[in-house]
């Protein structure tokens, strides 16, 4: 059994919140560079150049890439042989609290969602997802999520008879609805299967998967490629000004489902697809 101190978790989450907001993941950065090389409309090329410069400025000056430094989504994989000294959830919330304050990150969380809507002033609570796995490691992924793109994500309970065409139609509908609101070029995660709640988590995990990685089933791999191509034929383009690069990537995650259902969720992220992780 491994013992991990509460304070270690606080300090790691604090660091990850700041680093995730200052530096684009390498795969996203490279995808942006590649998009710049291949884009063929002038306004779109200019837009992508600004996004590249923005990422460089943010990293060099330790400034947030985007002012929406997000709600702190935290994915935890905890080995069943790990013992945390103190409350793990409280340590994560405390790490978020300290990271957002010390990092000059925007506090974007309100307490009551409908009536009061008073800013909690410290960006807590975080949204924490736990997976219990085998082993004695603790993996923490901090993925700050902005709501310009989050607001454009959608879920639909398709019928099995809707088939692959139903999935394609729904994904493209979501992209068209999102358009310029989601700060294209987007990073898209699609979840298929599971249940109403599970499918949205699949979509979010797909969104966080490395750009260029593929679903192990070649049929879904082909669907990833086909959907990305179709999205980039919509003409929405960078910033929505018209162009080729509407999305940088599209990943699919799947899970078994009920005989009566075929849930589909589309999780949209802007190009600022932030995530940093640590294994303790």
């Amino acid at each position, binding site marked *: 059994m491994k013992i991990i101190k509460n304070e270690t978790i606080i300090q790691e989450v604090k660091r990850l919140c700041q680093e995730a907001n200052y530096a684009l993941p390498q795969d996203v950065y490279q995808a942006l560079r590649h998009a710049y090389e291949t884009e*063929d*409309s*002038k*306004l779109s090329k200019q*837009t992508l150049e*600004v*996004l590249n*410069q*923005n*990422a460089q*400025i*943010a990293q060099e*000056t330790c*400034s*947030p*890439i*985007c*002012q*929406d*430094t997000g709600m702190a989504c935290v994915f935890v994989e905890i080995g069943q042989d790990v013992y945390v000294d103190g409350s793990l959830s409280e340590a994560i919330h405390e790490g978020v609290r300290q990271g957002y304050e010390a990092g*000059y*990150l*925007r*506090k*974007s969380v309100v307490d009551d969602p409908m009536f009061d*809507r008073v*800013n909690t*002033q410290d960006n807590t609570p975080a949204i924490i997802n736990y997976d219990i796995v085998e082993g004695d490691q603790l993996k923490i992924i901090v993925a700050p999520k902005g709501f*310009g793109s989050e*607001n454009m994500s959608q879920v639909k309970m398709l019928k099995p008879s809707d088939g692959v065409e139903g999935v394609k139609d729904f994904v493209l509908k979501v992209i068209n609805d999102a*358009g*310029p*609101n989601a*700060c294209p070029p987007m990073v898209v995660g699609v979840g298929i299967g599971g249940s109403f709640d599970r499918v949205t988590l699949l979509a979010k995990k797909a969104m966080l998967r490395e750009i260029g990685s593929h679903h192990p089933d070649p049929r879904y791999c082909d669907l990833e490629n086909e959907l990305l191509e179709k999205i980039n034929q*919509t*003409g*929405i*383009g960078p*910033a*929505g*000004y*018209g*162009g*080729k690069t509407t999305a940088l990537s599209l990943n699919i995650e799947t899970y078994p489902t009920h005989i009566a259902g075929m849930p589909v969720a589309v999780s949209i992220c*802007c*190009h*600022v697809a932030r995530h940093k992780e640590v294994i303790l």
Partner: protein
Amino acid sequence: MKTITTPFTKEDALSLKAGDQVLLTGTIYTGRDAAHKRLVALIQENKPLPFDVKDQIIYYVGPTPAKPGHVFGSGGPTTSGRMDAYAPTMLSLGLRGMIGKGYRNQDVKDAMIQYSGVYFGAIGGAGAYIGKCVESCEMIAFEDLGPEAIRRLVVKDFPLTVIIDAQGHDLYDIGRKQYLGGKKDE
């Protein structure tokens, strides 16, 4: 590239067309969801606003806190559609320009035509880049709203694109159609 300044007059507004790229220099005001809700409530109660909106430009933004020694943090545009419920009222009082990103609804477009307003797009996600255009920042109202408080900014060479002009032309439609039609704006 055209340069525009504030106050941003009706004549200035009418000279711009969807797709024009401009550099904005001058004083602008920040405001997003919660601030707009309060502004429109003040208007309905016939109370004075914290600033005169006539011929001014509102930037839909909630910036990050400035670091010590800096006047401003990161500050790219937020999604404008959430202000659609309030924008026609603001335009009717003489607000001339709005800066944000994303679709506007027909009510806003109609009000922009009626009152000669312009909707500018800043590049979403370019918060650090845009933040460098801000030369000064002063909190003027609703400080309790934190990032949503109204601030008076002085900006220099803030790069913008006209999304919807005062005739109601929309770059989001035009740009997409032009691109799909094979017309590359060389």
